[in-house]
């Protein structure tokens, strides 16, 4: 929900100031995480109030990017003038480390000179024109977030590298439990089971994915999807949550509309089938061993 802020003038994006159909948004943003820094490509904004859009295109108003990276104690406001967009794109590069982990960004449109504004989609609660001083905010976008994860590439890394199998510190604990309250999801096995687990090699990955990781991933996906409709997303600051969120919503549109079970299936590349195949091969191996 966007909260209302008191500005000297009506602001597109401030609830109640403009008609509901008035828009100030962007088609998409493109991020490049490279070795020497992070680049952001900003497309031209979509402003459907033609008068406001005209002020921007005539350089009577500028776009401002406000970007915040809490994990690196970094924030900055950058001016993006219409005539500095090249083929509809404004590219900004941030030196390595300025943006790190979950970052937040939003845009403002503000006047470069004193103007009398006559927006087309202004709410009828206001007079049809009003004066604005230099540097007055006249539109603001929602705030978006992005995960700038220098340690993890969802296209290359192991898709479940945000999970870890470990053991209960209390040796009396005899049941497996899952702790979602840390940066990695911790699947905590009883100590005796864990001691057996650590001897499994890569060859057991299929059955481990099927029997251990898969059910936990379904639950984790559930948390991520439900947080979209729930303000009490208690795990949203956790690394596992942000990485999974990126996998589901940012990286692959094919996952967005699936159920948690289907998403987990896709991420783990059908673990149930792989589990069955593993067991079938194990059975065959056992039979062939008996033959000898």
């Amino acid at each position, binding site marked *: 929900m966007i909260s209302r802020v008191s500005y000297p003038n009506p602001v597109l994006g401030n609830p109640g100031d403009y008609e509901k159909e008035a828009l100030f948004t962007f088609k998409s943003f493109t991020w490049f995480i490279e070795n020497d820094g992070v680049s952001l490509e900003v497309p031209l904004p979509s402003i459907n109030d033609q008068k406001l859009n005209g002020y921007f295109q005539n350089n009577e108003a500028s776009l401002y990017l406000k970007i915040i990276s809490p994990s690196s104690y970094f924030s900055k406001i950058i001016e993006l003038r219409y005539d500095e967009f090249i083929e509809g794109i404004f590219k900004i590069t941030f030196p390595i480390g300025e943006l790190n982990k979950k970052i937040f960004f939003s845009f403002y449109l503000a006047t470069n000179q004193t103007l009398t504004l006559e927006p087309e989609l202004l709410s009828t609660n206001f007079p049809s024109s009003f004066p604005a001083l230099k*540097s007055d905010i006249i539109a603001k976008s929602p705030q978006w977030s992005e995960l700038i994860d220098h340690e993890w590439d969802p296209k290359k890394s192991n898709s479940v590298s945000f999970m*870890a199998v470990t053991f209960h510190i209390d040796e009396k604990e005899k049941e497996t439990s899952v702790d979602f309250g840390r940066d990695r999801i911790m699947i905590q096995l009883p100590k005796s089971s864990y001691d057996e687990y650590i001897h499994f090699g890569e060859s057991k990955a299929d059955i481990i994915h099927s029997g251990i990781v898969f059910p936990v991933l379904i639950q984790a996906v559930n948390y991520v999807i439900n947080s979209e409709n729930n303000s009490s997303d208690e795990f949203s600051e956790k690394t596992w949550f942000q990485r999974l969120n990126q996998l589901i919503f940012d990286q692959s549109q094919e996952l967005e509309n699936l159920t948690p079970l289907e998403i987990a299936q896709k991420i783990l590349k059908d673990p149930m089938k792989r589990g069955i195949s593993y067991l079938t091969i194990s059975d065959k191996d056992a039979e062939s061993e008996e033959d000898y």
Partner: protein
Amino acid sequence: MENLKVIRTSKQESLTREVELFKDEKQLAQNYINSEGFIFEEADLIPTNLKLDIEEINSKLNPKSDSESSIIIYESLKNLNLINASDKRLWTTLCHKQFMNYVQDRWPLKDTPRSIILSRWLFNGTDRTAFTRNAISRLWWAGHLTAEPWKKEPSLEFLKNDDPYKYTRIMTDVAQLWFDITEREWGGNLIYRICFLETFDRISKSKNVSATFLSRELSKIFTGVLVADVVLVAHKEPQALIEYVEELTSYLEI
């Protein structure tokens, strides 16, 4: 000089879990007080390219002066990039091994050892809070956020000073200042952060008010000024911003 080895993520996690789940808090405290440095197994460690003169640093770390300690840690790790500075494993290793004596002296365990260990030896809460609480990472970040700002931002050239750590000293000498800067969104902006410290310094020299009170009141003014006037402030020269806030404070009971 030795090449530093840092603990693996799994070790970082298991240390945190052990502290959280350790049943006898008194015994936990004893383990930390009596230890002369945690011994990590080779399998728990990863080599890095970081070279540190541990003895030299330890001889200069001063549990009674955060500014002295901050300057020595920042100077020793000046070339650390921001990605590595956000790596909790590095700071946890330094707290538990190389600089353990300093951490013990600076943050005595007293009545709430678990909470102190979790926040000062390890990491607790969101990153913004956690990195300014951990006993060693807070010293580095304090240096990084305040050292020679005129070299990083040309509009701050008018604040150039013979002491490269002028603002580090101002911030680290007052716990409330440190809190007000690192806990607030505008504290992430180099210009606003330095303007805040400069304004604080000017007013505290001219008025007889407690540093804690002044920091608290000034941070409210900065928050008020910066939230609504994001663009206006972006265009305002730092010097004008400092004078603007100074003028505002003259109308208030500061």
